[in-house]
Every structure is written in C-alpha cells, then in structure tokens.
C-alpha cells in the first residue's frame, strides 16, 4: 500500500486521505480494506452484509450523488491457462507462461472469495471518484448473491442485469433481473474465467505475425523539428 505522498499531487492526495479516514471511521466494522494511489484513485472494500447500506451511506452522507458503473471480477485463474495463446506469443513471454498463476487472486484491496462485485461512484462536490468492492462468497453454483443498489441509485439497474447474466451473481431486491444482452435461454456465464472462449478453441489464434518495430533506445527517436510542421 503506497504510503508516501507524491509531492506534485499533494492537494488531491490529502483530499483522498481525509475521505479514506472518514470512510474507515464511519463505516466501522463494514470497512475491511482499502487501497489509496496518491493523486490517482481510492478503492475500498466493504463487508458483504453491509453492501446495500454502503450505497445509502455514500449517497446520503458522503454526497456521492453520481453513480458511475457496477461490475464484477472473477478471480479464478483461467483453467485454460495460456493455451488460448499461440506458440509464437508464448515465446515472447516465457516466464509468464511458465509461472501461470494457480492461486486465486484478490486484487489491491484483498479478499477471500472468487467473485467480487465492484462499483464506482463520483462526488461532484469534491470531484473525487471512489471504487467500492465487496466479496461475494460462494462457489458460483447458483449461490452468489448480494444486495441490490437500485433502491439507492436507479442507474444500477442495467449494470446489475449485466453482471447477473455475465457472472451469475444474483442481486437481492432487484426489480427485474432479466437478461440484458444474451438470449433468455442462454446457458452459462460468459465472463467467468471457466467459460471457454469458443472462437479460440475452434480456430487457434495465429499469434503475433507482424510485430510493429518500436522506437527503442538505439533507434533514432522520430522527432520533428520540421519548421513547416510547427507552423
């Protein structure tokens, strides 16, 4: 976790630090993790039971009136590994393909569960954005559920429908969790890591066949001092 403030961004960072302190004090037990990138961003993680109340708290007490988006992450390492890549690509990055992670990731704010729901809200009074994450415990076999945010932010409606069909996460109290994109009788949850990308299985990816040369340290850096071009 970053501790040293970037001197050039000190003002913004102070604002985020103050916000973080207020959140951790007022959310109490519900506050279980945070990640502050000075001058850039703030992420917090809340307890699963407190997910619905957090939305209300953020909107009413912290003036996060702007609902930005809601989504989810499946932290399972892809069971297909890097087999979806061509041999050419594997040669580019031998370490990564050898050490393909087998552990469940958890992101910058930690977490224990395979699925996490995350939402982004924005405050126009302080001009700060905030990402809120929550663990969704369960194996993914129809037992994933968190509270809905639609009663606080009506805009969460479509986002939750999308997460429901793509990850199979149920939102308790949602007014109508119908499929948004997929046909009604679609089976499986496409954005889960164990859902294969069929196009890649049917026809293997040819890999990088045309690598664009990058200006490296040895090349002449393409700089322009062309007088015509700078008017």
């Amino acid at each position, binding site marked *: 976790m970053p501790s040293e403030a970037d001197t050039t961004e000190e003002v913004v960072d102070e604002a985020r630090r103050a916000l973080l302190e207020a959140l951790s004090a007022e959310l109490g037990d519900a506050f279980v993790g945070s990640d502050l990138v000075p001058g850039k961003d703030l992420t917090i993680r809340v307890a699963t039971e407190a997910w619905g109340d957090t939305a209300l708290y953020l*909107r009413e007490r912290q003036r996060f009136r702007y609902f930005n988006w809601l989504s989810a992450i499946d932290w399972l390492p*892809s069971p297909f590994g890097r087999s979806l890549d061509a041999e050419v690509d594997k040669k580019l990055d031998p370490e*990564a393909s050898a050490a393909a*992670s087998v552990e469940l*990731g958890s992101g910058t704010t930690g977490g224990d569960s395979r699925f996490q729901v995350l939402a982004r809200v924005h405050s126009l009074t302080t001009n700060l954005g905030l990402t809120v994450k929550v663990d969704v415990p369960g194996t993914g076999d129809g037992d994933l559920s968190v509270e809905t945010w639609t009663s606080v932010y009506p805009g969460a409606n479509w986002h939750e429908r999308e997460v429901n069909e793509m990850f199979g996460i149920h939102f308790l109290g949602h007014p109508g969790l119908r499929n948004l994109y997929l046909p009604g009788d679609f089976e499986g949850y496409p954005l889960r890591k164990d859902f294969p990308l069929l196009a890649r299985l049917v026809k293997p990816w040819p890999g990088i066949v045309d690598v664009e040369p990058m200006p490296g340290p040895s090349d002449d850096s393409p700089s322009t001092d062309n007088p015509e071009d*700078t008017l």
Partner: protein
Amino acid sequence: MTAISDRRQLAYIAAQAADARVNVELEAEGMTLNIGPQHPATHGTLRIVARLDGEQVIEADPVMGYMHRGYEKLAEVRTYPQVTTLINRIDWLGSFANEVPFILAAEQLMDIEAPPRARHIRTILFELARIANVTLFLGDMGVQLGAVTPIFYAFRDREHILNQIESATGGRFHPNFDRIGGVKDDLPAGWLAETKQSLGEIRKFCDQMEDLILGNEIFQARTRGIGVIPADVGLSYGLSGANIRSSGVDWDLRRDGAHPGLAYNDVEWRVWTHPDGDSFARYWVRLQEVRESCLIVEQLLDSMPSGPIMAKVPRIIKVPEGEAYVETENPLGVMGYYVVSQGGLEPFRVKIRSASFSNMSISPWLLKGTYVPDVITILASLYFILGDIDR
C-alpha cells in the same frame, strides 16, 4: 417565444382531452408498439418495446444485445497493444477517443508518461474525433424531426475532419493510432495548416446549423420541454457528457479529470451548460461544444511542441500487477476502463464503462408518459451509438 408555448399548451390540453375521450369510449387496454430493431433513430440495432395508451407511452423497455460483441471477454486473451484494435469499434463515430482512456490506464499501471508532442497529437486527434462524431449528431437530429437537409451538410463537412484524421493516421474511422507511451507516427508535413482550414469549415457548419435548426420554429416547438431530465435524476442514472451538462451540471472530465497523458491544461476554453435539461438544451450544448473543440484544437496546433512522439517503452509490453481505472470525456460522455493486470501480456480483466450504456439506462424512466412522436425526439437527443451500448 410566448406564442409558441401558448400554442403548445393548447395542443397539449387538446391532446389530453382527446385521450380522455378515446379512453372512455374504448376502454383501451393499450397496445404494444415495436420501435426498431431497424429504426433509423437508433444508430445500430436497438429495439424498444413501448406499451401505449392511445398516443401515450405507459412503459418503454429497450431490448439490446443485437450487437453485443463481448469485448470484455475478448480483451482477456489479447495483449495490450492488440486491445486497441477491438475497442476502436465501440463508438465507431469517434474511434480514436475510445483508445485514449485504455492507453492512459495502461500508462498509469506502467508508470509511463507520454512526451509533450505525443500528448498534443493525442489531444488534437481526441478533439477531432469529437468534432467528427458530434457533427453527425447535429445533422442527424434534424433528420429525426423530419428535416432532411442538415444531414447532407453534416456528411459534407464531417468529411473535412475525416480527411485530416485519415492523413494523420491512415484510417478514416478506425485510426488505431494511440500507443502506450505516445502515438504511432508523427504528423505529416503541412497537416497543421490543413487542419486549421478544416476547422474553419466546421465553424461555418455550426453557424449554419444554428440558423437552420436551432432558430427553426418547428424544431423549437418539438424539442423545448420535451424529455426533461432533472439534474438529480440524471446523476443517479450515471448520465454523462452533454446529456448531463444540459441539465445544468457543470462537470467535464477534460477540465476536472487530471489526465497526465493529455494536454487539456495547456489550453483555454470553457464548459457549456444549459439549465433546461430538455431535448433542445442537449442539442444546444453539443453545438457549443463543437465550437469549443475547434478552439481547443486551434490552440494546440499553434502551441505544438517539437520532440519525440514516444516515451521509452519496452519492446514487449508487460504491465505490472495492479488495478487502474481511467475515464475521459468522450464524444458521447464519460468513457472509462477498469484494467486489472496480473503482470502478464494480457489484461486479467477489462471493465468497459461506456457512455451510451448509462445514457440509455435512463430511457425507461424518461420515455414513460411521453407521446410517440416525442419518443424519437428524445432518443435522438440523448444521442447514443449502439456499439457503445452493446460493446
């Protein structure tokens, strides 16, 4: 102006009375009207199932997914430079703008900063994409309301901008020009002067549209007070861009977002808002924004620094472990990418926050209680691209 509102009030009362009569006579249970999937107001294939009572919409339910391409899944099996090819196709009228937030997110994770000349080129192309995109809206809105002429002017004058984008990047619609650490190529000789000329054409086009459309009595009668979005409702639905600014919310990420990879801090311009929140306001704000974009591009052209166009980046791009969310003010509104990296060649997860998805999510609320002809006006004024909804 008062005459119009009087007449509109009379028409409204008459319509109400007519509705009441019809309902009493027929005890209508309502009918279901399918708008789309091919209606020209949709810029793609959107279908709206509207339940009607007479001429009034009781319930509107947009049905999407006709163009869902699964970019979030596809991005997980592509390297970072490959992803830009995909995301070019999200909002296809302002393609370059789609690349920028993703590249900025990757740069933030890799802790790379683009050199000043690259930042300028990036910002110019970003604004040109905005002009090309919104220019089409300015003409298209006329077509939706039955005025066919403006769209031809829009296509004619957008061509000036597309030509400039093409001569700089090689692609009229899908430049795929932004790179982690800079831009792909330098600008061709003479490009700066040519671009200035094209901006003149766009300015003339804006004046024309102001006369032809904004000053038109029929246009005003059909848009003023139609589809009013109060600021608070707009915020809770995640509306962004000109849609929220026309509800009086003074928020523009070009000014309010700190983007180290873009050059907005080097230029003087203003953010336009409108207090009304109706369809007219949304058109008016967009028209002013095109003018502001011209102003921004002009200043950037004048202050173009020399120097390299690429920072030093590794030949094979591996992004360190971490998470970053970067959003920018795109032609259609706020667009952002939440990129999760586990240190490999490909992103572990990419969440695409597209503007039209949130802008459209207000439509069931907004269309309730409107009349059928106004449905088209409202949808056109919200201005969405289906690729930007379905992704």
